[in-house]
């Protein structure tokens, strides 16, 4: 008698449990369908929209990586190859040479090389660049704006929520498809 009762109880519990399992599976199915209608196959990565970026220097300190995954890029077709590069030199440089006191870059990551007179080439040494964007400010304000900050995907770990995006004051961090993970400034996008 008692055995039959406990058996009954156990059967009832099993029945309820399998019912609950079915209900939960149904909910999962519903979620999948809902999301499936509205999902994309490809995964996305973080990138800075250079047209929104104000080079506030928060990228240098807020990335989960040290140094930051954000680096400066020089887009050469836009570069003026100026002698007095406002992205390279301090506002009032003592001399237009590679002396550290003249450079705006705190880590000396920009390599200046003389080409035919009066042009100079400016390359970014990405291993040294910390993504502070000081050069970007100078170049955008007074120059052609060929310097801009980009998330470098050989370093970026693609956090679920980018800790820089969280503090970005100009809302410049966007999700882009992993197949075209860079946003270069206007000129390339137009062509």
């Amino acid at each position, binding site marked *: 008698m008692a055995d039959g009762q406990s058996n009954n109880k156990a059967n009832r519990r099993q029945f309820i449990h399998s019912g609950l399992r079915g209900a939960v599976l149904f909910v999962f199915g519903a979620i999948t369908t809902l*999301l499936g209608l509205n999902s994309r196959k490809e995964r996305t990565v973080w990138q800075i929209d250079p047209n929104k970026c104000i080079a506030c220097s928060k990228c240098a300190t807020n990335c989960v990586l040290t140094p930051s995954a954000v680096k400066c890029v020089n887009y050469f077709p836009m570069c003026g190859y100026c002698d007095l590069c406002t992205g390279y030199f301090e506002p009032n440089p003592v001399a237009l040479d590679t002396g550290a006191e003249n450079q705006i870059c705190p880590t000396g990551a920009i390599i200046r090389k003389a080409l035919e007179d009066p042009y100079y080439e400016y390359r970014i040494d990405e291993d040294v660049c910390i993504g502070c964007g000081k050069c970007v400010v100078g170049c955008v304000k007074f120059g052609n704006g060929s310097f801009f900050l980009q998330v470098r995907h050989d370093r970026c770990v693609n956090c679920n*929520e980018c800790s820089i995006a969280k503090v970005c004051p100009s*809302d410049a961090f966007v999700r882009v498809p992993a197949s075209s993970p860079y946003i270069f400034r206007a000129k390339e996008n137009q062509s």
Partner: protein
Amino acid sequence: MNLRVKLILFLCSGMIFISQYVSFGIERFPPPDFEPGTYTMPQATKPPPRAHYWEYIDMALLLAALSLASYFVHKKRSRKHIFWLTLFSIFYFGFIRKGCVCPIGSIQNITLALFNNGYLVPFSVVFFFLLPLIFTLFFGRTFCAAVCPLGAVQDIVVWKPIKIKPWLENALRIIPFVYLGLAVLFAATGSAFVICEYDPFVSFYRLGGSVNMLALGGIFLVVGMFLGRPYCRFFCPYGAILSILSRFSKWYVYLTSEDCVRCQICDVACPYGAIASPTPTSQENNPIISKWSVFGVIGLTVLLTIGGAYFGGKLSVPLSKVNYVVSLAERIAGEESGKYKGQTDESKTFRERGGSIEQLYAEALKIRGNFATGGSIFGAFIGLIAGLKLIESRFTRQTNIYEPDRASCVACGRCYSYCPREIIRVRNLLKLRPIQKQE
């Protein structure tokens, strides 16, 4: 495409060109025309992100690891195998994959995608969210046992775990639900991904990160030496969902229940306080009192739910400050009324772009409204969970043996190697095998 559409598109693209040209004043210094052949212009490099096929490897390995974990827990019943899988998870899901997107964090992606049609979630994220849930539905929390890298790292640092009182344990287990509710609220309103922001171990797996997060991870690991899996038990929001699903999983961790000798060794061996003790027999002697306590506890649950909804709604104003739009609107409002002097980077950018302040206020108010609704639901949810916990603690199922509690057992398999009955059972199995072979 007809001609008119083409024309409009052409004009639009022209306008975009002009607007960009004006706003950035590019080409103040025209790029030089180098003599052909004298200078090759360097290309700005574009290092690609992690290759696409890795995503499929991740998904396949997750499926494989979950299947193996379930096999080891239920079929092999072997702590040793589970331990090796734990090490693999630390190595692959931790150090190689470096965390994102993990099932715990994916709660937020799924929520945001459900509430915001503009947010598209890749298939792999849906997969990472659902697969462990489905496995839990059938096999219990085998995901926690050896697949989750956050659980794995806490599992191997357990050294001298202390027992905490069941009432305290029960009370603390409400925290994951609060965390889950908050995470869903913030994700649904598009404000923040708090789970990821306060993930204590991701910076450890990346071998870097802010000092605060590394310190938090360190604290969790040190505490974890003396209090088994502190994050999983008292914080993990995904664990909160799993603890509900595992209550009615098809298979679950059991010891040899029919001939338990009540030696209590499993209870001592379990570092996570997940072994349910036999219920004292004198509990339901007085039917009148127990009848009243039924009404009392159910009434209290209703009260807690209503009260939670009320206070949750009140929380909407402080909670909504986490949202970017709301905080910007508050800043701008403060600047307009002279409360704040000067501008922040945010307000300065907003003004320079010529955003409409009225529109910003309207948007912020709408988000705050969402927070009011969401906050009430959140509060009611917490009240309900607290009430259900009370009901559960009041009416535990009568048992006279020691057995793993289905909700809180993370299937680490330690009890298998301690239960004397289980050891005898395994030994008998091993003895029987050669005889069966001879026949």
